[in-house]
């Protein structure tokens, strides 16, 4: 199990990490969320022992991460990087060797991942001759070589097309089933909500929320009620003021609100086709946790006409 314990790091006047703590268990896929500049990349570098910490410690199975443990961590940094003029297969075998595999195992691992990621026929080509999407696959393969115990992936989905996103999702689920611990950062919150069992949300170097996705949603102090009318209808829910005519109305309510009463007023206003009531989706949980508008979430609360509501 990976444990990040009260880790702190400042760069001059900037506090990058302020006593950050969280855990990733084997067979668990944890989403690491936060607005840009929140400290995600620094935390991931700290796990990979690339940052000298001011305070705290990162442990693997109870002991501080040493070279032997780190050799079994796969890492995909935010800033992708490979030797541009090296052949793809050579690059993978070289890295596998540096990761402690012998020559035969390194060749097997490289070929296996090239096959799995659909790059087998590009094995002899130089890295720079690949499209950026394919380069990203090679970068992912570098992290996956040799069945690592822990995967630390910084924005693995950025820049991928939908097909590649599906492939990567599949691969990650396989790794989790195999028993690997996976930590990934992303701004694509629906994807994280689909894939990850747990999330850690950081903002300005602090952990602001962490836990199972469903628990966090259930524990949210807000609920959402969405009401769909047959035709655009004006509606004045109790104590919320009048709302302009729209087919769909979406309300943010404190948890524990009497929904039936609200629905009664809706039915009085017009023909209600459908309604949905439940906890907020992950992006809303995220928004609340961060406590200010961020680029990944829609503007808060207003029941905007025609705005689609996330599936969760």
């Amino acid at each position, binding site marked *: 199990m990976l444990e990040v314990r009260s880790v702190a790091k400042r760069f001059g006047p900037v506090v990058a990490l302020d006593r950050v703590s969280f855990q990733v268990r084997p067979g668990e896929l944890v989403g690491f969320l936060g607005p840009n500049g929140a400290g995600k990349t620094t935390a991931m570098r700290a796990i990979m022992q*690339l940052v000298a910490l001011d305070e705290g410690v990162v442990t693997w199975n109870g002991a501080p991460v040493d070279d032997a443990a780190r050799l079994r961590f796969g890492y995909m940094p935010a800033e992708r*990087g490979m030797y541009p003029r090296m052949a793809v297969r*050579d690059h993978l075998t070289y*890295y596998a060797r540096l990761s*402690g*595999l*012998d020559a035969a195992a390194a060749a097997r691992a490289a070929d296996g991942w090239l096959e799995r990621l659909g790059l087998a026929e590009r094995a002899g080509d130089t890295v720079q001759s690949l499209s950026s999407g394919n380069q990203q696959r090679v970068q992912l393969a570098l992290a996956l070589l040799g*069945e690592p*115990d822990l995967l630390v992936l910084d924005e693995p989905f950025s820049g991928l097309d939908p097909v590649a996103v599906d492939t990567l999702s599949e691969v990650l689920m396989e790794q989790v089933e195999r028993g690997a611990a996976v930590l990934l950062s992303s701004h694509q919150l629906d994807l994280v909500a689909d894939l990850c069992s747990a999330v850690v949300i950081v903002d300005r170097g602090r952990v602001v929320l962490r836990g199972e996705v469903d628990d966090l949603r259930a524990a949210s102090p807000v609920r959402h009620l969405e009401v769909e009318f047959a035709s655009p209808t004006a509606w004045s829910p109790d104590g919320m003021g009048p709302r302009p005519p729209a087919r769909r109305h979406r309300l943010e309510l404190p948890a524990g609100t009497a929904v039936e009463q609200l629905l009664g007023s809706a039915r009085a206003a017009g023909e209600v086709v459908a309604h949905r009531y439940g906890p907020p989706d992950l992006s809303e949980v995220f928004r609340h946790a961060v406590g200010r508008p961020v680029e990944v979430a829609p503007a808060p609360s207003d029941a905007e006409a025609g705005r689609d509501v996330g599936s969760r």
Partner: protein
Amino acid sequence: MSGQRRVLGGWGQVGLVAGREIRERVRARSFQVSTGLLVLVIVALGVIVRVGVGDGPGALRVAVVDADGGALEQALVAAGERSDREVDPVIVPDGSTARRVVDDGDADLAVLAEDRQVLFADEVDEQALSIVRQAWAALDLRDALVGHGLEESEVAEALSARPIEATTLSGGDGDDGLAILVGTLAAILLFITLQTFGTYVLTGVVEEKSTAVVEVLLVRVPARHLLAGKVIGIGVAALIQLVLAVTAGMVSLALASVSVPGEVWSALPMVLVWFLGGYALYSTLFALAGSLVSRQEDAQAAAAPIMTVLIGAYLLVFFFGYAPESTASRVMSVIPPLAPLLMPMRMAAGAASVLEVGLALVLMVAGVVLAWQLAGRIYNQVLLQRGTRISWRAAGAFLRGD
């Protein structure tokens, strides 16, 4: 299967890094083309010299108008032998024929025995003239001795030249010019190779940082092992190129029939030792310079201080190399960054004592170790700092800070 991992020792990692460096470099088209061209040009020079010049200076063609039944021709050939010059005499009937033959370029000179005259086409060849004088002097002496009643055989006995041996009081062959030439050539060769291969290391490090590949490398290999592997790998690739060039040079010299003085060969091991020391020191510093920048465009600027020292050391060879016994020369030739260029010069001149060479080597090794320690500590901290160029001053602050 997932358990089949082994933590590599330091040398295992350095070996893998160096191996990649050698493979990628030797496989690169640019390396193959530049090495091929280098070898081709060097061999071509030898071929050109051979075709253009032929086998050394040709025989001296002498048109002889002789009144003495062949004695002059024999004397000319004999005098030529003593001067290491082959003489090819041709008998012509009279002076006008001799003039015409020289004028047409069929002979280099003409000797008119009765007029005691020597004719050249354009300018007087002093060596040829000297050979003719010797031949004539020998003939005159013979005539005089025979006139005093000696037998022909006794005359021949008296005239046969006994070999003379030349020695110097200092014991050597006294060729200061050659020593200076060897020392200068060694300095030039060392300067070019240190600069070229140092630049390879510089650009190689900048490539790793500018492409950000260094971040995935650093989670597998400590910075100091990356540094060592790169320096050793590029050094080996460079030596392969150097050995091919030197081999081509030997072929070329053989083709051109140039005999190489023994001093040049005996200087080679010394050049190699100083190359290794100089390369270890300078390439480490070049790697450090490369680690401070994130773009190839900034690499030269970051390396400028090191390049300045290297060029300075090179220029000092020409200031102090010709005064190898001076105190300034003695002091400078043991200082590590200067020693790889200055010491070979002084050694070639025979001016460096064993003590001085030993001291220079010890300081050199100490300098390399120090550079390694510094580079290892700074390297680790700056490799992940991408963006603007990090100043040497800021890099120095890392040493005090951490």
